């Protein structure tokens, strides 16, 4: 009996990991290239969810199908944010970066509050709320689809980074900006592109999360923290590490959440995180 519950918890954890993965990859990409922690990543996700919500309400486009549109909007928003706010920050001390990103958090949260009120909103998609039964375990279709889309986006991003010239530029800038500059790479443009892609990934997160969760103006900070933990676990800037990190956190949350409760599960995850920061600050896969 308890082994089926455990199996179910593991499945739930893996599916949850898919959602965490996409948010963390965006944060990680930005950190990898610019060595800057975008504390307002979750707020971009929140904006993406609202865009996705309004597209659904106003035009009836399914949130999964509207992912490219929302990604496009967030891509432009990210590029603008980078050019006018983030780029000048790169030369400033860490304290000023924190102030700016917290400023961005407040600006985005309260803009959303003004525009869309504090009400919890969600989108009901018929097939996403169904689930399939495999003998003793249940797999919710919405979560399965979310995990699959997230996984294939990660794969696509990985191929983009490894196989294309632009991806090569991004990796080069991430490894050594000065050398990249000397080799003729326009690192300013690479940074804009990176921040824009990091933001656009939140569009994918938004599309897969909206059928599963409610959206409200203050949903973002929680995902930022989870993502920070995940990318630190995997090693800041490390792509594969982020994927492993999200699986660990997803499993911890689902398994301990099933057997104790979700709050204690998260408290344990945070405690493990502090412990890992201390004994292995470079993360599981870091050098």
């Amino acid at each position: 009996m308890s082994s089926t519950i455990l199996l179910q918890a593991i499945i739930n954890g893996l599916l949850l990991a898919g959602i965490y993965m996409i948010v963390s990859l965006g944060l990680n990409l930005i950190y990898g290239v610019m060595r800057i922690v975008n504390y307002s990543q979750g707020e971009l996700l929140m904006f993406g969810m609202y865009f996705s919500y309004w597209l659904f309400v106003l035009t009836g486009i399914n949130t999964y199908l509207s992912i490219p549109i929302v990604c496009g909007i967030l891509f432009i928003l990210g590029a603008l944010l980078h050019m006018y706010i983030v780029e000048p920050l790169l030369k400033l001390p860490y304290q000023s970066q924190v102030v700016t990103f917290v400023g961005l958090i407040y600006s985005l949260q309260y803009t959303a509050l003004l525009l869309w009120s504090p009400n919890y909103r969600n989108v009901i998609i018929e097939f996403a709320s169904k689930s399939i039964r495999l003998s003793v375990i249940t797999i919710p279709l919405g979560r399965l689809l979310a995990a699959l889309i997230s996984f294939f986006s990660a794969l696509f991003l990985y191929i983009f980074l490894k196989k294309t010239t632009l991806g090569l530029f991004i990796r080069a800038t991430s490894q050594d900006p000065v050398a990249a500059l000397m080799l003729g790479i326009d690192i300013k443009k690479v940074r804009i592109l990176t921040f824009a892609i990091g933001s656009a990934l939140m569009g994918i997160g938004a599309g897969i999360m909206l059928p599963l969760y409610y959206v409200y103006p203050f949903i973002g900070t929680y995902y930022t923290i989870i993502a920070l933990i995940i990318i630190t676990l995997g090693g800041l800037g490390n792509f594969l590490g982020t994927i492993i990190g999200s699986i660990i956190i997803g499993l911890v949350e689902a398994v301990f959440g099933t057997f104790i409760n979700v709050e204690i599960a998260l408290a344990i995850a945070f405690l493990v995180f502090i412990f890992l920061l201390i004994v292995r600050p470079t993360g599981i896969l870091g050098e």
Partner: protein
Amino acid sequence: MEKKGTSPLIFLFIAILIASIIPILSPPYYVLHIVTVSLLFAYLCTSWALVGGYAGQVSLGHSAFVGIGAYLTAIILYRFKLSLLLGVSLGILTAIGIALVLGYACFKFGVRGPYFTFSTMALAEILYMLVISRREITGGALGIVVPVEALRKLPINPKIACYYIILFMFLAVVFLARKIQYSKLGYYLVAIREDEEAAEACGINVLKYKLLALCLSSALTALGGVFYAIYYGYITPDGVLSLSLSFQIATTSLVGGAKIWFGPALGALLVIPFTEITRSLLGGTFIGVPLLLYGILLVIVARVAPNGIYEIFSKYFVKEEERG
């Protein structure tokens, strides 16, 4: 050294004079409330600056210490019906204990910069989750009442009593911050903030002084939490343990100027009355406008005055550093 302007101390004395007679003028309750909350934030921000500004270790989890002070007081008073003094001392001791453990672990093993920030955020989140899940002790997400019998027995209005208490706490912490800034400890912390390796090479015990700054800051913050609990009489995890409280303490402090003793107080006394007053004036649908403006202000200040808005005012003041 010739005086180039007026010392900030003179402004402070005038401010104290005005502040101490406010309750005598019997202002509307809500004016007194705004001044009290502003002073509480000025107190919390100055406490934060001891570690975040002086030592340069940016914590985005100071609500953890506010929460420890507030919740331990509330639990001691409400669940166990014991004395306030016990709550205060237990709150402060627990805060110091937790700061020692976290600080020692982080500083000993070179967790700094963003990594230190993450670990403080995680600490606050752990406490938040624990408070939410231990409903039978903490009241869970709904919060807990803080019955303060001692305050009701006083001959004066409890709100006025609270006002004088926080005024005293604020003045004490500002003078302490000033004292530390121009002491050996203060100079050690600046050296550590600017270059840890160089400080270590000069023979400064970096671990010891960073820990000292963190413990001092968290103990003072926990005391602020105790005041919060007593003043509001009711606390919730979203009020005292939320990340948004941590953000507000840290950014208000940095906006004012966390590297100088009067900076955080300046920031809090400018920002908090503004947000509180606009919030009550606008109300309704526009309740978010003050914080939206605050967010924009943060983005601008970080760019034009990275050391804080005190820089803009500082040309009117004597450069205290030059006095030697």
